[in-house]
């Protein structure tokens, strides 16, 4: 136990552990100090000065970086403090475009919220020079609008610390500072992996997904198109938040209902092809082990991770499972198997994926992912985009009845459902691999060793005579740590699950944005994952190979796992990508 410290905040005595900040201590005293640049464990730099307090020192101090000390007497609401905070906020507003009416983050914006809380009565209290920047919307995943940016650097810290990508940073100095890529190039011309974690970190509307909902509306309004939608496991665990439901509410039934009302012709479940992924991936793993193939095999469901691997660790490309990600498998199956069953030419079918992810937007554009001559998936929208579509269509989400997915590609198991949480793909694969390899029934289905938020989770799983060394990591910075250890020969594994986003898909870059303050109270990575694990336990079938729809699909259409047809439709390949995409300019001999 570390040393305890006693201090007084606004006359209230609090005890905190040594090392705690005044901001932590205030929270214990039920005092909410306003913050803006602060993002717990990610960006704690005391830059924005919203959290200033009086401590008796000559100047005001930033509570988020001020260590609590014994006997300290802190005042968080003096006239001086209130004046300073409001002035800081008004100065930030003086260089912000304040176009709240047309901003995607309106009503979920920390700047807007603070303006209200600090009782800003004149948003133009200071009028002066403004910095002006073009919008960068060249990336299929992420749009940056620096006219809304408050230069808090939360996106920068996230890109570096949790993702180890580091393609954005502060450029210039003083008033002219802006967050940009090197040489002010478009994000699409950098090593950006499209994970969208910067969007999740942004307190305002400076970062958002590249919207594809306009394209989806066009498809829905086109009478010649048969529009089929699918939803990823993690979407149902978070969509409700956009309608005011508590974090971790599972809204599968209402979501399906809403999608039908939006006009989609068929509503399928990506959980179904998560099970299909497990069938193919478990088979691939067993083959690699039996035939002395390249190990460890690494999962390929997360397109942010795939972009990361191709860019920063191309030497691990042979380790990547050749399986397409579940929604791409679904796209290929819809345009082949379903098209045949429904008697609709595949070119008349449009596949829309609702994903917790922005990198899926880049993935859908990959040329190699077009088994039937058109892209397997025609459009990808995020959970947030779906919520906006539902709202703009006048659907009263909260009162909707629960409906079921369409049956042909709608069956799912608990294994497919837990794909949305870190460790879930691993666990699902182990449930199937165990029974396939040993021929025995797996009694205890819960692999707790690969669950939870530890950055790198390792486990040894005994299957008959074989001991499988496995690991699950989430957040590409953790993947980097593990890959470096494998490269150095420090560690060896048979099978690794990598999810690009911290916490896995439930906390993907396309999910509802949770403010820094709300994150202190509820961890979306935990609450949303709980919803999926709870669903898993409640399901009749919890192993992918027991999914009746999957069994039918192999029997009627695919044949065996890893068959020629399965390979053609469900597997893919990867290509090394350059870190620096612009042709390097030649320096002149001066």
């Amino acid at each position, binding site marked *: 136990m570390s040393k305890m410290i006693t201090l007084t905040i606004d006359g209230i005595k609090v005890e905190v552990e040594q090392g705690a900040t005044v901001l932590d201590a205030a929270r214990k005293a039920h005092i909410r100090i306003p913050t803006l640049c602060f993002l717990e464990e990610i960006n704690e730099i005391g830059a924005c000065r919203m959290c200033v307090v009086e401590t008796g020192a000559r100047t005001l101090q930033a509570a988020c970086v001020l260590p609590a000390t014994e006997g300290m007497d802190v005042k968080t609401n003096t006239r001086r403090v209130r004046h300073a905070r409001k002035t800081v906020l008004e100065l930030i507003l003086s260089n912000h475009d304040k176009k709240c009416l047309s901003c995607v983050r309106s009503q979920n914006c920390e700047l807007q919220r603070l303006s209200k809380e600090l009782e800003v009565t004149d948003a133009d209290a200071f009028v002066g020079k403004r910095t002006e920047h073009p919008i960068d919307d060249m990336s299929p995943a992420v749009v940056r609008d620096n006219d809304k940016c408050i230069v808090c650097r939360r996106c920068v810290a996230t890109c*570096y610390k949790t993702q180890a990508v*580091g*393609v*954005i*940073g*502060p*450029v*210039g*100095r003083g008033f002219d500072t802006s967050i940009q*890529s*090197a*040489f002010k190039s478009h994000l699409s011309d950098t090593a950006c992996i499209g994970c969208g974690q910067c969007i999740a970190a942004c307190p305002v509307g400076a970062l958002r997904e590249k919207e594809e909902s306009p394209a989806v509306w066009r498809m829905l309004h086109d009478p010649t198109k048969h529009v089929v939608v699918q939803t990823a496991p993690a979407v149902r665990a978070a969509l409700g938040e956009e309608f005011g439901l508590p974090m971790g509410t599972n809204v599968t039934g209402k979501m399906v209902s809403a999608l039908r009302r939006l006009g989609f012709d068929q509503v399928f479940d990506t959980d179904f092809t998560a099970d299909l992924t497990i069938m193919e991936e478990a088979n691939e793993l067993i083959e690699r082990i039996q035939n002395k193939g390249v190990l460890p095999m690494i999962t390929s469901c997360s397109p942010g991770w795939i972009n990361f691997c191709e860019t920063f660790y191309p030497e691990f490309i042979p380790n990547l499972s050749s399986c397409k990600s579940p929604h791409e498998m679904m796209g290929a199956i819809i345009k082949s198997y379903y098209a045949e069953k429904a008697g609709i030419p595949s070119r008349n079918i449009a596949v829309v994926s609702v994903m917790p992810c922005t990198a899926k937007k880049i993935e859908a554009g990959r040329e190699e992912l077009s088994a039937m001559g058109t892209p397997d998936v025609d459009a990808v929208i995020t959970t947030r985009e779906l919520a906006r579509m539902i709202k703009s269509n006048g659907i009263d989400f909260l009162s909707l009845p629960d409906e079921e997915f369409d049956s042909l590609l709608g069956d799912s198991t608990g294994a497919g459902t837990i794909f949305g949480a870190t460790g879930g793909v691993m666990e699902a694969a182990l449930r199937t691999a165990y029974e396939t390899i040993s021929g025995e029934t797996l009694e205890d289905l819960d692999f707790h060793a690969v669950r939870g938020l530890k950055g790198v989770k390792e486990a040894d799983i005994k299957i008959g005579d074989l001991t499988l060394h496995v690991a699950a990591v989430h957040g590409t910075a953790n993947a980097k740590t593990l890959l470096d250890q494998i490269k150095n020969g420090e560690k060896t594994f048979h099978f690794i699950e990598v999810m690009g986003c911290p916490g896995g898909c439930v906390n993907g870059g396309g999910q509802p944005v949770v403010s820094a303050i709300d994150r202190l109270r509820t961890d979306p990575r935990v609450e949303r994952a709980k919803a999926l694990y709870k669903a898993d336990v409640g399901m009749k079938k919890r192993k992918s190979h027991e999914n009746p729809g999957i069994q039918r699909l192999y029997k009627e259409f695919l044949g065996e796992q890893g068959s020629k047809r399965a390979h053609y439709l469900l597997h893919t390949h990867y290509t090394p990508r350059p870190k*620096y995409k*612009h042709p*390097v*300019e*030649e*320096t*002149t*001999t*001066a």
Partner: protein
Amino acid sequence: MVDKKEKMEQLRKVIAEHKDEPGPLMPIMHAAQEIFGYLPQDVQIEIAEGLDITLSEVYGVATFYSHFSLEPKGEHVISVCMGTACYVKGAQAVLDKLSDSLGIQPGGTTKDGKFTLLATRCLGACGLAPVLTVGEAVHGRVTPDEVPAILSLYED
């Protein structure tokens, strides 16, 4: 004239020298600015790769300090001090005159590559205000009328 390959070789040596010291980025960037006269993209990539940091970080530093230049600088770099003392003593008029005479804005370089014009922060020679430097040479108590004479010193 040293060719590009040799300069890159020089840069690699500097990187190797400083790599394992604490805070290696600044001395390396200083050296790179010396060697190349500016910091083009390939030079910044070389530094980023050499130190295993991101290009973003190198570029951020390059744009933060006015000492570093992203464009090739002219043969003669004219820096007009815009510190408080020089400013009060009429540095702006001197800068405007130079701008007019050379036909470039502060930060720019003449087409013939002869002159680069910069407005800088305090040079620490307030007693000579308004002051400007051309390369290493310091010119004090400058008036706009003296600008043509000063420039003529550097025209071949």
